């Protein structure tokens, strides 16, 4: 697509709210439509600053401005990210309110060409106090030629300064030196030769220690970017010695700043924004069978880790083992397995996930992870104690890297599974899972019961009764769906128990409500006298003590049903159940008692709670 033909296309302008990854703000830019895709073209600007948030707890702001050409960033770009708070003291300057801010800011300025950095790019991280620069926390200056860093660069942070040289093709070369404000000479040195890291030199206690990382004898090498994966590789090559490399830290920090920008630009269009340092690493290629083999191994290791975590983090086991000898022994065994097998093996997964397996000598893995020798299988709890996991097979010993590791991982998984089974119900997690499953099944069956009841209510003619039961059912469904959205934690199980109890009450309440129409018929009949009318010579029904039955039917029951309909609440359910259970018998009781005073008091009594009290029932519900 030539620029000319592109210019012939129509450009649209967008101005409004926009979201790029985790950055959400107001954007204005231009774009063209090409085969349904949005092609950014022209100036781009995006920003977010929330005064309200700033005045409240703090604001995370950003400003991004630049331009695109054919969907690739091109031209001058500026990024500013800030996390600010304010003391909220505002000043009126002219006709503008000014507020002082304090916090951190990350600023990046440079030029892009064809989606890659070009020219000098500076990243600055600063600490701001009261809108003044208090301290520069980080600064990196790298000169690029279309994405390839050139000549030398400089990274400063706190009291350190790192300078290094790069060849034309981006390969690290010569000495990368770290200076400190405290020392006169270099504190750390990485010596490269055309990308190969020959050795590192670290000043420790006035002594310069030299560490040959990769060694000299490589057969194959590969050029990879100097990024966090490379730094991890360096860590591995020094394992188990821990490294406190400041250069590593600075390079890592720089890489993270570049990653932030790259994330944004790559989401918007097509870009590749990297520091671009290239290094050579030894290359030990994997063939396809090896790739599969290592992949399987990593799965085994992952499984072992999960099992180990389950056992070691089980809260119930922590308590049980203090009184149960066998549990304690199994627990100790699990710890041993973790320390000697699972944890070291975990490193392999890390290497694989960062794509570094091809750059390590796999045969060295065994000796590196276990410098004191591969642990003897089976792992024992205590020296001399016959804590045997009889059902666990120990594979044939193998010297070769992958085979040996497989053997170890396999054993770890089996041993841990056996331990888990032996612990059985002492593991809360298992018990918890079982209980949770049981509770959830119970919840479903309770829901079904509620639904069934409501459907059998199709013949219910009383709308109040119908509505109350429908409200209960809706609430039950809501509780269960809310529960199913919970993350699986220990709280989920206790919540399941709560909801189960609640649904139980709802079921009971529904049953009581369904009884209401029949109960009313009984009450009506009980409160009916048969009178002989001599004038018609017929027997007529006459309802007696109307005030009591009216109070029940017109005040009490509608109130109860209305409250249930409006507030199908778990806590209140029990109270309603009790009320509905005691009210009808009480009314029937009153038929034969002397109730003249009661009837007088009930006259014109509209407040349901008063009615409840007068009838001798426990008042439930809100004050009206």
């Amino acid at each position, binding site marked *: 697509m030539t620029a000319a033909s592109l210019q012939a296309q129509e450009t649209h302008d967008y101005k409004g709210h926009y979201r790029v990854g985790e950055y959400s703000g107001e954007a204005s830019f231009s774009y063209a439509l090409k085969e349904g895709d949005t092609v950014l073209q022209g100036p781009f600007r995006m920003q977010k600053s929330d005064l309200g948030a700033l005045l409240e707890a703090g604001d995370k702001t950003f400003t991004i401005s630049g331009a695109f050409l054919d969907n690739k960033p091109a031209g001058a770009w500026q990024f500013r990210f800030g996390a600010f708070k304010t003391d909220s003291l505002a000043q009126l300057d002219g006709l503008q309110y000014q507020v002082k801010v304090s916090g951190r800011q990350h600023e990046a300025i440079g030029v892009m060409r064809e989606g890659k950095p070009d020219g000098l790019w500076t990243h600055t991280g600063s600490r701001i106090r009261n809108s003044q620069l208090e301290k520069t926390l980080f600064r990196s200056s790298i000169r690029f030629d279309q994405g390839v860093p050139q000549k030398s660069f400089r990274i400063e942070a706190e009291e350190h300064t790192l300078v290094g040289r790069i060849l034309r093709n981006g390969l690290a070369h010569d000495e990368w030196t770290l200076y400190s404000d405290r020392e006169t000479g270099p504190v750390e040195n990485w010596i490269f030769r055309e990308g190969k890291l020959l050795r590192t030199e670290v000043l420790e206690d006035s002594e310069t220690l030299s560490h040959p990382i990769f060694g000299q004898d490589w057969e194959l090498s590969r050029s990879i970017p100097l990024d966090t994966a490379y730094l991890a590789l360096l860590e591995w090559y020094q394992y188990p010695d821990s490294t406190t490399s400041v250069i590593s830290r600075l390079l890592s920090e720089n890489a993270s700043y570049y990653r932030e920008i790259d994330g944004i630009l790559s989401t918007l269009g097509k870009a590749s924004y990297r520091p671009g340092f290239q290094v050579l690493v030894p290359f030990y290629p994997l063939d396809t069978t090896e790739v599969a083999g290592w992949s399987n191994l990593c799965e085994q290791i992952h499984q072992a880790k999960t099992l180990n975590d389950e056992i070691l983090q089980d809260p119930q086991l922590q308590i049980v083992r203090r009184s149960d000898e066998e549990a304690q022994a199994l627990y100790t065994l699990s710890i041993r397995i973790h320390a000697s097998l699972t944890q070291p093996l975990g490193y392999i997964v890390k290497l694989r996930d960062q794509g570094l397996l091809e750059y390590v000598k796999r045969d060295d893995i065994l000796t590196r992870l276990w410098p004191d020798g591969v642990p003897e299988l089976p792992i024992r709890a205590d020296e001399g104690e016959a804590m045997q996991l009889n059902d666990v097979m120990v594979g044939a010993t193998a010297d070769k890297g992958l085979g040996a590791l497989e053997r170890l991982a396999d054993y770890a998984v089996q041993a841990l599974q056996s331990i888990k089974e032996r612990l059985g119900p002492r593991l809360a997690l298992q018990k918890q899972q079982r209980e949770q499953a049981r509770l959830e099944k119970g919840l479903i069956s309770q829901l079904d019961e509620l639904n069934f009841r409501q459907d059998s209510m199709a013949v219910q003619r009383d709308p109040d009764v119908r509505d109350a039961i429908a409200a209960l059912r809706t609430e039950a469904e809501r509780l269960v769906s809310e529960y199913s959205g919970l993350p699986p934690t220990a709280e989920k199980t206790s919540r399941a128990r709560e909801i189960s109890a609640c649904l139980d009450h709802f079921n009971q309440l529904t049953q009581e409500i369904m009884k209401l129409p029949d109960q009313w018929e009984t009450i009506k009949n009980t409160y009916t006298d*048969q009178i002989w*009318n001599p*004038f018609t*010579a017929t*027997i007529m029904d*006459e309802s007696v003590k109307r005030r009591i039955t009216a109070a029940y039917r017109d005040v009490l029951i509608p109130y109860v049903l209305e409250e249930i309909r409006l507030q199908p609440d778990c806590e209140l359910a029990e109270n309603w159940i009790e009320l509905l259970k005691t009210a009808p018998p009480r009314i029937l009781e009153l038929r034969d008692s002397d109730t003249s005073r009661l009837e007088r008091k009930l006259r014109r009594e509209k407040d349901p709670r008063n009615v409840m009290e007068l009838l001798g029932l426990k008042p439930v519900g809100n004050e009206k």
Partner: protein
Amino acid sequence: MRNNRLKTQQLIRAAVLVFFLGVSGIGCSQEQPVILPEASQYKEPLSRFWINTYGNIRVSQRLIWIAETHFRFQETEDMPFLGQIGQIYNRHAISYIYSKYFNASLGGVLRVNFNTDPLSEEKNVVPEFRIWHQYQFAQPLSPLMIYHRIRIEHRWSKGFADNSDYIFRNRWRYMLRIKIPLNSRKFEPGTWYLSPESELIMQSGKEVVGSPLEDLRLTTTLGYILTPRLTIAGGLMYSQGQTLDNPGVFKQGWTFRAHLYYAPDFRRVRNKLPAIHLED
């Protein structure tokens, strides 16, 4: 032929004359002969307004005290129906409920008669006494109820003249009443009913010569049952009957009637047995 017809006519005339002479001879106070009209004569209808209260007060499981008080108004020259008070009735009795379908009563009546003749110089008020008994049959014919009432009264009454004496008569009454519920299929509070009834009142006694038909009453009322104990009704009655003086002369009247029926039960029985269980 002609001779025979003339002779028969003469014979009849003579017989009538003798008859009346004979009648006048039997009656105590009548002295003039009564002349029968050629065709039955109907006096001008009398318009009346009756306010009747019927009380049936339950005194025990099977006994009811009938307490009726009626106010009968009749017309004056200036005002129809309600012009003046005619009689005030007090009828009381004890009634025995034999079953749902039969009851019998025995009691008395004190009726106060007011002199309604505006020109009369005689007494204004004269009391009248009766002893009566009745037998009522109820016949359900769903949704109607049919009632047969046989009432027999022994009556002492007298005129307004100063020297008039009490005469004794027996009254033989049969009433057929039908009650038709209008807005339901059974009688219950809130029911409107229509009640046509017809009563035939026959009288007999020494003074009753040729006027056995005292009153034929045809009434229709519309009633409303308020509660099992309270009913109201109102309607119109047409009545006619022979006058005591002259059997050929009939009196008639149109009467508006307003009824109040009440049946209180003052018994303080805890568990009043349902009325149907009269045999318990």
